[in-house]
């Protein structure tokens, strides 16, 4: 059982800001290349440039949730609360990224398919994951005991993550009767460099976010699991100045 008398350690903030700075630089470079330097695509004209934001976001959303799964597993196996802090951070960042992904996908669908949502299996699975992990954040908010909160949300993350492939395949089969093939999979070399740059940019930026958010969780856990305050000094019985 998780030991509540051992709160996680709290290292300094330095690495978090550095990661975010590096990530921001890469994103600026990659976006500039993708928006202004890369040539127009044969089918989708200029709209395809959304891909330079959308695809890196997609890769990193999955990465965030995978890291959350790993942290949840690590917590259940080691009962070390540093993994609970990382788990909380990864789930929250993953939720933000998943929400962003759905918005981007919707904005891309409109000019290409004429609808705001086309039930694309990957995007629909992301929407389901978004709701599943929002539920896990709600679970964390409504459970007060730190040990129980950590254990229960870890269990919930493991089940939610294990569910992802099933959700994906069921949506894919369900939609296969109506689906026109969505975005092209093969990307030729001239498009790859901005994509890779942005992918690493989002990766570093997200790592920075998760690092900082982990600190927040660690600090809160330290406060919650702090030993009880010492007894107050007895007040002098004779009335008068203390």
């Amino acid at each position, binding site marked *: 059982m998780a030991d509540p008398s051992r709160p996680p350690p709290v290292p300094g903030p330095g690495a978090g800001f550095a990661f975010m700075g590096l990530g921001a630089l890469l994103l600026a470079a990659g976006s500039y290349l993708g928006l202004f330097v890369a040539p127009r695509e044969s089918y989708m004209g200029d709209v395809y440039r959304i891909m330079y934001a959308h695809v890196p976001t997609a890769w990193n959303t999955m990465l965030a949730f995978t890291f959350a799964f790993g942290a949840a597993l690590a917590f259940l196996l080691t009962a070390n609360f540093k993994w609970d802090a990382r788990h909380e951070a990864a789930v929250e960042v993953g939720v933000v990224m998943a929400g962003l992904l759905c918005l981007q996908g919707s904005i891309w669908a409109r000019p290409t398919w004429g609808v705001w949502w086309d039930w694309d299996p990957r995007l629909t699975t992301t929407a*389901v994951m978004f709701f*599943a992990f929002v539920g896990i954040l709600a679970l964390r908010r409504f459970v*007060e005991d730190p040990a129980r909160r950590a254990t229960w949300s870890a*269990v919930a993350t493991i*089940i939610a993550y294990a569910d992802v492939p*099933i959700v994906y395949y069921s949506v894919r089969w369900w939609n296969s009767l109506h689906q026109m093939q969505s975005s092209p999979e093969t990307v030729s070399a001239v498009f790859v460099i901005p994509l890779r740059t942005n992918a690493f940019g989002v990766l570093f930026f997200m790592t920075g976010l998760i690092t900082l958010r982990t600190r927040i969780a660690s600090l809160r856990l330290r406060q919650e699991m702090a030993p009880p305050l010492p007894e107050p000094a007895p007040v002098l019985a004779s009335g008068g100045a203390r």
Partner: protein
Amino acid sequence: MTQLLAALRKEWLLQSRAFAPLLAVLVFGATALLLFSFAVGPNYELLRGNAPGFLWLALLLSSTLTLAESFQAEMEHRALEGQLLLPASPTAVYYAKALANWAQLAVLGIAMVPLMVALYDVTMPRPFALLGVIALGAAGLSAPGTLYAAMTQQARSRQTLLPLLLFPLVVPVLIAAVKATSLLMLGDPMGQVWSWTLLLVAFDAIHWSLCGLLFGRVVED
């Protein structure tokens, strides 16, 4: 195994006194079915086509009621801690509870079929296969539902938390069960019902094992 049987016997005793609540949930499900038809309008083509969806949505909504109460008896008398101190294996407790919930949900689903036939004018050319799909779908709802019911029983805002956690998780059950039911009721020229049934079986297998494995961590203290 003997622990499982003992836990099951306990569940059976609880269930035999729970007829009234189950009836109430059935009335809730029936009302939901009625409301769906009001939402769509008296267009028989539409109603017949959407009937499978309505059935499974009504069952899903009803499940939040039955699952939320499934640990009620244990909560009121702090019997869960008592059981686990015996020592009873949490796995036996889980499977007994999940089986009991499965039975309740399957009974609810089957009871809603005649209502569906009446309200939506559907035919039932393959009744036994339909029974099988209802059983598999109910099992898919029951396995994660029992786990989350145990968690949310003790949390604040538990009435919102249980569906919030459960619904995204059982999307595959909803998709597969509705598709399979629809093929069974409206015709299946390409023999696809088996692939959807297989999906249900896979979901059930994964969750009945995974949730059973993890239940111990949820109730430990």
